[in-house]
């Protein structure tokens, strides 16, 4: 399966080629330039689909391993595309394609160098998902962060620069913590390859074990900052809500990098190697997840503007995922993987939707809706007569349907995929033998779903029933509405194909939770791609 191994590096190479092409063809006219970038994004999506399909179809071939420069594995850097990585790469590619289509209508011309930065961010994300080397993970983190710094400032104004200042400062500190953690882990295990670390952990001298745990904890803090976990998340709502909408949509997958890194390293190194007692840091993950969910739900209730609401929904999903990782059961993990795909796509769609709604609504109408809610509407009774004959124009209907679907998915209500994922997580948690943690877990999922529903419904009422202009048909560009519809349609399709999807995720989770399998795939290979 040499060909499959080579596919593993393509999700990194394609965006890199796009960056280079953009820099070389810097003076290309806008229409052809947009087409060039869309072509690169389509190619990336196709490559990611190819990788996932190839991995899903070949039995027994669990991961594509690509040693860079053909160096033997524990010494050189290696890319490992297992199913988890392939799913995350596919989500990134789809979301970046949607955001790019959206941006090609209007947003790309609001600042300089949008396209190269956008592709660099995609490249960093894909690299972070694919790499099997801890220090290489750091490099890809920095790559995606550097691009995200630039993108946060895209279409800049005062608020964006202020938000970006905090965002950059916090992430620089997080990077230094990352380095400290990596250095401690290297000092105790003598290797940076993730599979090799998993192999070396049981062999650590008892005296060094504390140092290793400290390194892992410092590294964990760095990942938790990226994942938007509770006491470390205060940068998130502000940055996400002030970023340009297509950028914010792609940022929806950025917190998932933190989740991915925690899931990968924690299950690989800690979750199974510590015997019957609680794995290292499990309680911390559970408590932080719970706190993040609570904070995100309350924040969602408190936000009047849709972009802030979407940012808090990101926090809710981050908390849900942390809880699921901390729960440390294969069934729960498979539900969480389903959830991460759905929540990321829906959150991305919601950020884009917010911008479309901003165009439909006059700015004063939104302020009015908020103030109506605070001060009460004295003319409400007089308006009742007109309400019957009101017609909602076509584009607005579509937008409101999209909003309703996004709300159902986010809140986890029955017909759609949000429900399927939460149901899978809860039933797996119950099936694995209920403990105190189970009840906290279930309560957190259900209560947060309810609070999110209240927040979404209230926002929807404000937007579509109170503030929508009566007569004039809103003009919404097809290029802006299409990606939203496609993203949400994918979520719906995932609900329709829930059976095969869950079967796939169950196998993926089983692979994640048997670290020996990962180690076996990566380490003993001959370096002959």
């Amino acid at each position, binding site marked *: 399966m040499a060909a499959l191994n080579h596919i593993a590096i393509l999700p990194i190479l394609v965006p890199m080629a796009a960056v280079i092409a953009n820099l070389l063809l810097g003076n290309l006219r806008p229409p052809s330039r947009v087409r060039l970038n869309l072509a690169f994004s389509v190619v990336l999506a196709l490559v990611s689909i190819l990788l996932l399909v190839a991995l899903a179809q070949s039995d027994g071939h669990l991961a594509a391993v690509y040693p860079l420069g053909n160096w033997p594995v524990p010494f050189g850097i290696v890319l490992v595309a297992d199913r988890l990585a392939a799913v995350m790469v596919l989500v990134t590619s789809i979301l970046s394609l949607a955001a790019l289509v959206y941006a090609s209508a209007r947003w790309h011309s609001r600042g300089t160098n949008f396209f190269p930065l956008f592709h660099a961010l995609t490249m960093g994300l894909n690299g972070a998902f694919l790499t099997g080397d801890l220090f290489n993970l750091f490099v890809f983190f920095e790559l995606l962060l550097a691009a995200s710094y630039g993108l946060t400032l895209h279409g800049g104004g005062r608020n964006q620069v202020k938000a970006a200042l905090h965002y950059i*400062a916090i992430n620089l500190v997080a990077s230094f913590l990352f380095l400290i953690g990596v250095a401690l882990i290297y000092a105790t295990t003598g290797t940076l390859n993730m599979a090799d670390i998993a192999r070396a952990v049981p062999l650590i001298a008892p005296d060094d074990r504390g140092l290793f745990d400290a390194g892992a904890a410092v590294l964990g803090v760095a990942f938790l900052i990226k994942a938007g976990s509770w006491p470390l998340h205060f940068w998130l709502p502000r940055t996400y809500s002030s970023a340009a909408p297509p950028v914010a949509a792609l940022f929806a997958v950025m917190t998932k990098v933190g989740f991915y890194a925690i899931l990968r390293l924690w299950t690989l190194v800690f979750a199974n190697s510590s015997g019957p007692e609680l794995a290292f840091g499990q309680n911390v993950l559970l408590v932080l997840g719970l706190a993040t969910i609570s904070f995100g739900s309350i924040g969602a209730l408190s936000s009047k503007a849709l972009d802030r609401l979407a940012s808090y929904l990101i926090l809710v999903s981050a908390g849900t995922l942390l809880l699921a990782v901390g729960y440390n059961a294969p069934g729960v993990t498979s539900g969480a993987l389903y959830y991460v795909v759905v929540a990321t796509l829906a959150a991305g769609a919601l950020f884009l939707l917010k911008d479309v709604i901003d165009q439909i609504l006059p700015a004063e109408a939104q302020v009015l809706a908020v103030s109506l809610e605070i001060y009460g509407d004295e003319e409400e009774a007089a308006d009742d007569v007109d309400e019957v004959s009101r017609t909602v124009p076509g584009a607005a209907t579509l937008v409101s349907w999209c909003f309703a679907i996004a709300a159902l998915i986010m809140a986890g209500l029955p017909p759609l995929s949000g429900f399927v994922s939460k149901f899978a997580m809860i039933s797996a948690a119950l099936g694995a033998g209920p403990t105190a943690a189970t009840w906290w877990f279930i309560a957190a999922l259900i209560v947060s779903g309810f609070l999110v529903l209240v927040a979404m419904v209230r926002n929807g009422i404000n937007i579509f029933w109170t503030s929508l202009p009566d007569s004039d048909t809103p003009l919404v560009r097809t290029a802006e509405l299409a990606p939203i519809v496609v993203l949400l349609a994918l979520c719906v399709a995932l609900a329709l194909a829930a059976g095969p999807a869950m079967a796939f995720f169950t196998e993926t989770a089983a692979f994640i939770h048997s670290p020996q399998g990962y180690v076996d795939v990566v380490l003993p290979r001959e370096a002959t791609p």
Partner: protein
Amino acid sequence: MELILAAAIGVLAASGVYLILRPRTFQVIIGLSLISYAVNLFILAMGRLRMDAAPILDGANANPADYVDPVPQALVLTAIVIGFAMTALFLVVLLAARGLTGNDHVDGKLD
């Protein structure tokens, strides 16, 4: 030598943390630089401190015990380059914030 290095890392990190918590953007960027120096020294120290030992093997049957671990040195080199680039980028944003808000407070307001 261990004591001197440990003290240097500690002092750099402590000063850096103090400066990061200050309200002026310039103090923050100096604090970040100090922390990055501390972290770089820390990574180097994690490869065990050795005097007068080369990181590159020469000869086919050299004894690895005579050499210093080259990996932390490579890591430090990468970390320095990345940290340098990020600090430069932060400096640009800092100047933009100074220009747009008219003062150098991290929250962009006069105190």
